[in-house]
């Protein structure tokens, strides 16, 4: 304010009025009223106790309200209590009593001394209060900053980082904040979901900065429609624009805007410093690399699947043509050779499909497309798929005729059931029976596959659905990857069902049961309407 001397008087007056106005904030009224009550209480106390104690320097009793007001509510209530104390002591305690005037020079000196002491203690107390307040705010900000750095450290995408910055500035300033990513690799701010909430003028200012037509504005912008003020601030790192922030201050007076603006700028400076420290550009890059690596993995799996499946499809197709050719079809030895090629290729093709499924489950999870399905369709599709591999066994499907429809991903459940039946056929001796029971139990449909194989020990029963688990009793005798039942369980769970394995013990067969959700008609209606 060193240029204040040159300011004309009218401007001074306006400033003084503004200052008083800003001090006479409505929030002061409560504390002032309480301060005056304390002054009144002290007056009453002194009035009663005065004659008993023969108080000469009654004015100093009023230091109590002054200190209380200064420590608790700040300067204004302290000044008010000081003035009230001065008036009260002059009126009640210094002769002439019940008269505001004071004649005795000693009393006048007393009152002057009171004013000096009141001002000094008031100021000291106020300063202590400000310190406490600042320390508390600092602590809050440190907490926010710490939280902010932690969020930045675990951010897994550029969007996470931007959200963290936005939330941080919003927490520090208490204002609504919208952050628009800037820089070459980012989509324009119009693409942001927050864009439509911005007033037209603010949108123009953001676009100017985004397209490099302006460097950002210092002064707040006013939205004429709502009367709300907005601040536009840029966020940059190593001289590169990282983001543009629009901060809604609401409809507040110019003084409050200045205060909030200082707070916003401080918060932004802190945020920028933190960003520099963790190197946000690098972090954004890392996040992008992570997501690209995931995409690459998917692409690799896709291409490997294509590369492996195409030759297998050629082999299988060729054998199917060969087996029809007259020279082969009529020669039992030749056609049995073709059958070997076909069966082994089919097995290989299944193994590759299992690997692909397993990798799909662990990388992306399984997306289930739930639809109403006839349970017997699932069983029949699985049996049709496995037809040739079940030739050595006696298959006994026992499907109840009036099963309720299930709401599942039929394709996933069929694959799961195929795995389970295939497993049963692999582990139980040729000539034995594999029974497939489908029945309704409460609001579920159970499909149970029971074999007459080696059964399950207690240990096998608990570990059956684990990835790569293979029963130690069969590892040498039966080929397999240990993926089948793990995949089956993932597919069934994705459809909202679950799997269960039971056995009467080693050597006494095993039953694997798929439980599928079959909502009742009332639930059906609810589901249908929720789908709409």
């Amino acid at each position, binding site marked *: 304010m060193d240029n204040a001397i040159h300011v004309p008087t009218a401007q001074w007056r306006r400033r003084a009025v503004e200052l008083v106005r800003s001090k006479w904030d409505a929030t002061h009224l409560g504390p002032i009223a309480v301060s005056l009550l304390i002054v009144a209480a002290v007056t009453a106390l002194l009035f009663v106790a005065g004659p008993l104690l023969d108080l000469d320097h009654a004015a100093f009793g009023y230091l109590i309200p002054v200190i209380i007001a200064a420590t608790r509510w700040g300067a204004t209530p302290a000044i008010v209590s000081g003035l009230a104390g001065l008036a009260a002591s002059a009126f009640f305690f210094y002769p002439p009593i019940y008269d505001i005037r004071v004649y005795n020079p000693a009393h006048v000196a007393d009152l002057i001394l009171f004013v000096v002491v009141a001002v000094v203690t008031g100021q000291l107390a106020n300063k202590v209060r400000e310190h406490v307040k600042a320390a508390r705010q600092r602590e809050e900000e440190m907490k926010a900053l710490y939280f902010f750095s932690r969020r930045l450290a675990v951010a897994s995408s550029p969007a996470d980082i931007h959200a963290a910055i936005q939330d941080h500035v919003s927490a520090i300033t208490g204002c609504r904040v919208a952050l628009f990513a800037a820089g070459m690799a980012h989509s324009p701010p119009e693409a942001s979901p927050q864009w439509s909430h911005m007033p037209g003028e603010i949108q123009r200012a953001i676009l100017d900065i985004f397209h490099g037509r302006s460097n950002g504005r210092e002064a707040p912008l006013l939205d004429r429609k709502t009367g709300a003020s907005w601040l536009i601030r840029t966020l940059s790192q190593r001289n590169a624009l990282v983001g543009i922030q629009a901060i809604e201050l609401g409809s507040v007076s110019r003084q409050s805007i200045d205060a909030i603006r200082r707070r916003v700028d401080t918060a932004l400076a802190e945020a920028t410093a933190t960003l520099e420290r963790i190197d946000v550009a690098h972090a954004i890059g890392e996040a992008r690399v992570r997501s690209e690596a995931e995409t690459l993995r998917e692409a690799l799996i896709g291409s490997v699947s294509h590369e492996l499946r195409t030759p297998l499809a050629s082999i299988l197709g060729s054998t199917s043509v060969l087996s029809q050719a007259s020279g082969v079809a009529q020669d039992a030895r030749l056609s049995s050779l073709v059958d070997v090629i076909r069966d082994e290729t089919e097995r290989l093709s299944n193994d590759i499909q299992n690997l692909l499924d397993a990798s799909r489950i662990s990388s992306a999870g399984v997306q289930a497309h739930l639809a109403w*399905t006839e349970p017997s369709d699932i069983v029949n599709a699985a049996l049709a798929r496995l037809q040739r591999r079940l030739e050595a066994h006696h298959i006994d499907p026992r499907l109840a*005729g009036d099963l309720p429809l299930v709401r599942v991903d039929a394709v996933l459940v069929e694959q799961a059931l195929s795995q389970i039946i295939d497993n049963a056929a692999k582990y139980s001796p040729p000539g034995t029976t594999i029974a497939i029971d489908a029945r309704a139990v409460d609001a579920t449909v159970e499909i149970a596959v029971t074999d007459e194989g080696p059964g399950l020990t207690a240990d096998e029963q608990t570990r059956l659905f684990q990835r790569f688990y293979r029963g130690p009793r069969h590892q040498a005798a039966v080929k397999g990857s240990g993926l089948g039942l793990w995949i089956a369980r993932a597919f069934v769970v994705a459809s909202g069902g679950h799997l269960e394995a039971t056995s009467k013990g080693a050597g006494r067969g095993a039953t694997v049961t798929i439980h599928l959700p079959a909502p009742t008609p009332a639930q059906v209606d609810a589901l249908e309407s929720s789908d709409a």
Partner: protein
Amino acid sequence: MRRPALVVLVIDDEVRIRRFLRAGFELEAFIVQEAATGAEGIRAATLKPVDLVIVDLELPDMDGAEIVERLRSWSKVPIIVLSVRASEEEKVRLLELGADDYVVKPFGMAELLARARAALRRQAPGHQADPVVRAGSLTVDLAARTVSVDGRPIGLSPKEYRLLQVLAQHAGNVVTHLHLLREVWGSAHSDDAHYLRIFVRKLRQKIEKDPTQPRILTTELGVGYRLSIDGG
């Protein structure tokens, strides 16, 4: 009656797949044309009339859907798609765009030939003249609107008959759930999949020997239904 040899156009980028398809079709007295890319395939189809198109879903230059769409814009030639497992949505999309059927890789020649023959039968000239569709023990007379099992007429409700009629019109080929819902219940009911399940069950109880193990009205999980003309 000996018809002139049918021409099949195979569009697949894999030379080994084309080779076995050529062998398989030539064994059945088809004339085989090959194309390695989608663009080449569409050119071949426009230059010379073909009777059947086999198209791979994954071509390097063109999406399978695009080929089906472009062929369908001027031709009613039967189209069979070679697809991979776990792409039910893609299959449904191609069928909705006008493909007649699909087989899933790896597939046997017999399966592909069965699908192809069914599609060819529907497109063949004179097909309109024979309104009787036979599937196992089932006979559907589309002209007289009668249905019989083992020679004995059976009664169907109007919706049941409509459902069977649509399937019989595509006998041997898959019909998508959406197509059936639209044809039987109208486009407003295209989301009411459970109606379809319930009517299929009713229909099976009337036409199948064992409704829990259907041989005639079979299910393509996640895609649709098929009236299996080569079924038992």
